[in-house]
C-alpha cells in the first residue's frame, strides 16, 4: 500500500488548514453560500436532506486497518455510528456538522486520508479494480498508476473549475470490475502484440441523464507519457466542453457532438504540444510508488484446500470467495447487503470488526467495491472458516455476492436532496421477496441496481435489471430497465414500459426473473438470456 512521505503529508495537512480557514470565513459571513459551495464541495461536503454530508475519499478503494478504524471513529464521534460505502469506493457520513468538518479532516489527515475532490467540478477520486494485486486474471497491479493519477489530479491548477465533474477508472484485467466504459475516462492496462504495457483509453462514458458507453479514443497509449496525454484530454474538455447547460456539460456530450475521431484528433494535436513541456514524472517516480504496492509476504507451500463440511460455510465459500493468484490464498468479499439492511451501510462496530479481520488475517488490507461491498484481498485459505464465523456473528456473512439481493442502491429520497423517490425501501422489499438463498443461487448472477433519480448514482442504466425512481405528480414511481451491464460487455438498459409503484415494481421483477427461468438455456445468465431473446417476452410477462 502507498504510504505518504513528508510531501504528501504536508499537502494534506495544508488542506485541513485551508478548509478550516474557509469554514471560518463562511461562518463569519465573509463569503456567501454561493461562493462557499464550490469550496466545500471540492472537499466532499454537501448540504443534504437532513444535515451536511461528508464524502471521504478512499483512493482506488484501498485502505489499511488503521484507516478503516478511523472511519469507525468518525462515525462514532461526529456522526450517528454508521457510514455508507458508495459506488465510487468512498464512504459518506450523513449527519455532519459544518463546524466539525475541519476537525474531521484533521483526524483523517492523521491516518493519511482526506476528502479532497470527492465532489465538485474537478477530477474525482480515481476508482479501480477491488481485486487489484490479488486477481488471478490481472496483467499488473493498476494501483501505482491510480496513485500517480491521485497526485496529478490533486489541486490541479488548470482543471479544478471544469465544465462538470470528471471521473477516471483504471483496470488491468480483461474482466472489468470497475465499469471503466461508463466513466469520463476509462483506462485498461494490457500488453500489446509487441509485449509492451500500455493503456487502452476510453473517453466519454457515463450514466446520468444521457447515458453513454465510452468509445476507444486511443487503442494503445505507452505508460510513460500517460499523464501528459490525460492533460491533453482534459485541456480539450476544459476549453470546449459545454458550459451553457449543466445537463450537457459532461465530456461524453463533447465527445458525442464532436465525434470520437475528431475528439481524438484534437487530443493528439494538444498532446503533441503538451508532452514537450516536461509534465510527466520520471520513471523513478512510478518505480518509487510501485515498490509500495509490492505483493505481501505470502507463505508458500501451504494448503490450497478448504474443509467444506459446514454447509452454510460452503455456500458462502462458493458465492463470496474468489480465486487469488497466490496458491493457498483467497479473496474474501464481505457483503454489506443483508436482507432488510441498507445497501452499503455499516455500523462503527462492523467497520472495526472488518479492520480487525484485515489486520489479523489479511496483511492489513481492505478494499471497497463499486458494488458497495468490502473485500479482504489476501486471506489464507486455512483462515477462511474462522473469518466466516466472525462475519456471521457481526451480521456480515450474507452469501449473496452478485446475486439478486446484492443490490446497488443510491441513498435516494431518504437522504438525498436531488432524489425524486426512495431507493432503499425498494431494495429492501426486493431482497425480502427473494430472501431464500437457494432461489437466488438458482437465478445466478443478476446485477440489480437502483437509482432514486436520473443522476444515476445507483447505476440503474448498468444493471442487468435497473430501477429508476421518478416523481409522478408528487408520488414515487419506479421505471424498470433490462439489459444493462457495467462490465467488459458494457451496455445500457432499456425501459420496459410504464412505471410502477413500490410493490408493483417488485412484482414486475418477480415476473421478469420467472420469465428468465422458463427461457434460459443451460448455464445462461439473466443478461445473456435477455440479449438472446430481447425485450418482448419480458414485456409480455410484465404487462401482459
Amino acid at each position, binding site marked *: 500500500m502507498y504510504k505518504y512521505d513528508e510531501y504528501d503529508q504536508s499537502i494534506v495537512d495544508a488542506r485541513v488548514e485551508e478548509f478550516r480557514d474557509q469554514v471560518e470565513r*463562511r*461562518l463569519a*459571513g465573509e463569503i456567501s*453560500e454561493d461562493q462557499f459551495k464550490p469550496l466545500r464541495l471540492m472537499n466532499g461536503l454537501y*448540504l*443534504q*436532506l*437532513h*444535515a*451536511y454530508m461528508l464524502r471521504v475519499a478512499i483512493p482506488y478503494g484501498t485502505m489499511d486497518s488503521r484507516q478503516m478504524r478511523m472511519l469507525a471513529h468518525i462515525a462514532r464521534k461526529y456522526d*450517528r455510528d454508521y457510514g455508507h460505502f458508495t459506488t465510487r469506493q468512498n464512504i459518506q457520513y*450523513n*449527519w*455532519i*456538522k*459544518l*463546524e466539525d468538518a475541519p476537525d474531521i479532516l484533521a483526524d483523517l489527515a492523521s491516518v493519511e486520508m482526506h476528502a479532497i475532490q470527492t465532489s465538485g467540478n474537478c477530477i474525482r477520486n480515481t476508482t479501480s479494480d477491488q481485486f487489484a494485486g490479488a486477481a488471478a486474471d490481472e496483467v499488473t497491479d493498476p494501483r501505482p498508476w491510480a496513485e500517480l493519477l491521485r497526485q496529478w489530479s490533486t489541486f490541479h491548477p488548470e482543471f479544478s473549475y471544469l465544465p462538470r465533474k470528471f471521473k477516471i477508472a483504471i483496470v488491468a484485467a480483461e474482466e472489468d470490475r470497475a465499469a471503466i466504459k461508463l466513466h469520463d475516462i476509462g483506462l485498461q492496462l494490457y500488453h500489446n502484440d509487441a509485449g509492451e504495457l500500455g493503456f487502452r483509453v476510453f473517453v466519454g462514458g457515463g450514466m446520468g441523464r444521457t447515458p453513454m458507453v465510452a468509445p476507444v479514443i486511443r487503442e494503445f497509449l505507452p505508460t510513460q507519457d500517460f499523464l501528459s496525454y490525460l492533460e491533453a484530454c482534459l485541456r480539450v474538455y476544459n476549453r470546449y466542453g459545454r458550459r451553457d447547460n449543466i445537463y450537457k456539460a459532461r465530456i461524453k456530450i463533447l465527445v458525442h457532438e464532436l465525434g470520437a475521431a475528431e475528439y481524438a484528433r484534437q487530443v493528439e494535436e494538444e498532446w503533441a504540444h503538451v508532452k514537450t513541456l516536461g509534465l510527466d514524472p520520471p520513471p523513478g517516480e512510478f518505480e518509487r510508488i510501485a515498490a509500495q504496492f509490492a505483493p505481501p509476504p505470502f507463505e508458500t507451500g501451504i494448503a490450497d484446500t478448504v474443509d467444506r463440511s459446514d454447509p452454510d460455510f460452503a455456500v458462502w465459500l462458493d458465492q463470496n470467495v474468489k480465486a487469488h493468484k497466490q496458491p493457498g490464498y483467497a479473496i474474501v468479499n464481505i457483503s454489506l447487503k443483508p436482507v432488510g439492511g*441498507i445497501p452499503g451501510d455499516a455500523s462503527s462496530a462492523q467497520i472495526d470488526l472488518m479492520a480487525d479481520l484485515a489486520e489479523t488475517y489479511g496483511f492489513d488490507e481492505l478494499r471497497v467495491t463499486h458494488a458497495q461491498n468490502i473485500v479482504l484481498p489476501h486471506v489464507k485459505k486455512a483462515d477462511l472458516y474462522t473469518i466466516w464465523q466472525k462475519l456471521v456473528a457481526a451480521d456480515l456473512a450474507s452469501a449473496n455476492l452478485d446475486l439478486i439481493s446484492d443490490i446497488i442502491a443510491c441513498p435516494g*429520497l*431518504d*437522504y438525498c*436532496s436531488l*432524489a425524486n423517490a*426512495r431507493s*432503499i*425501501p425498494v431494495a*429492501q422489499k426486493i431482497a425480502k421477496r427473494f430472501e431464500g438463498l437457494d432461489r437466488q443461487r438458482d437465478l445466478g448472477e443478476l446485477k440489480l441496481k437502483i437509482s432514486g433519480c436520473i443522476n444515476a448514482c445507483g447505476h440503474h442504466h448498468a444493471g442487468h435489471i435497473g430501477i429508476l425512481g421518478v416523481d409522478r405528480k*408528487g*408520488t*414515487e414511481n419506479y421505471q424498470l430497465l433490462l439489459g444493462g451491464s457495467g462490465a467488459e460487455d458494457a451496455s445500457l438498459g432499456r425501459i420496459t414500459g410504464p412505471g410502477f409503484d413500490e410493490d408493483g415494481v417488485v412484482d414486475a421483477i418477480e415476473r421478469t426473473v420467472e420469465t428468465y427461468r422458463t427461457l434460459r438455456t443451460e448455464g445462461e445468465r439473466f443478461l445473456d438470456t435477455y440479449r438472446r431473446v430481447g425485450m418482448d417476452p419480458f414485456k409480455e410477462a410484465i404487462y401482459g
Partner: protein
Amino acid sequence: MKLLTGNDLKTGDVVWWTGSDWSRHVADAVDVDGHGEAIAAAEEAARRVNAPYVIDGEATPDGLRPGHIKDRIRALGPTVRLDLNIKPADPKAGSWVI
C-alpha cells in the same frame, strides 16, 4: 398555507420558521403567507439559516404536514432508520410521511 424551511448553518439541522425563530420541529412552524421570501432573505443574510425556501403545507388532524414527500422526509428523518428520526419514540411517525 406556506411554510419556511432551511438548514441551520453550523449544524445542518433541518429547521422551520416559527414566526420569531427557527425550530427543528415542523409542528412549531407558522404560515408565512406572502412573507416567506423576505424572511428567508433577512435570515440568510444574518446567517441564522442556510439555503431557506418556501414550501406548501397543510394543517391536518396530525399537525402541520409539508405538501411534498421530500419535505415530509426532511421533517421526520430517513424512513428506513426510524431510530434516527426527530421523534424516535413515535411509532406513527413513518406513516405520516408517505
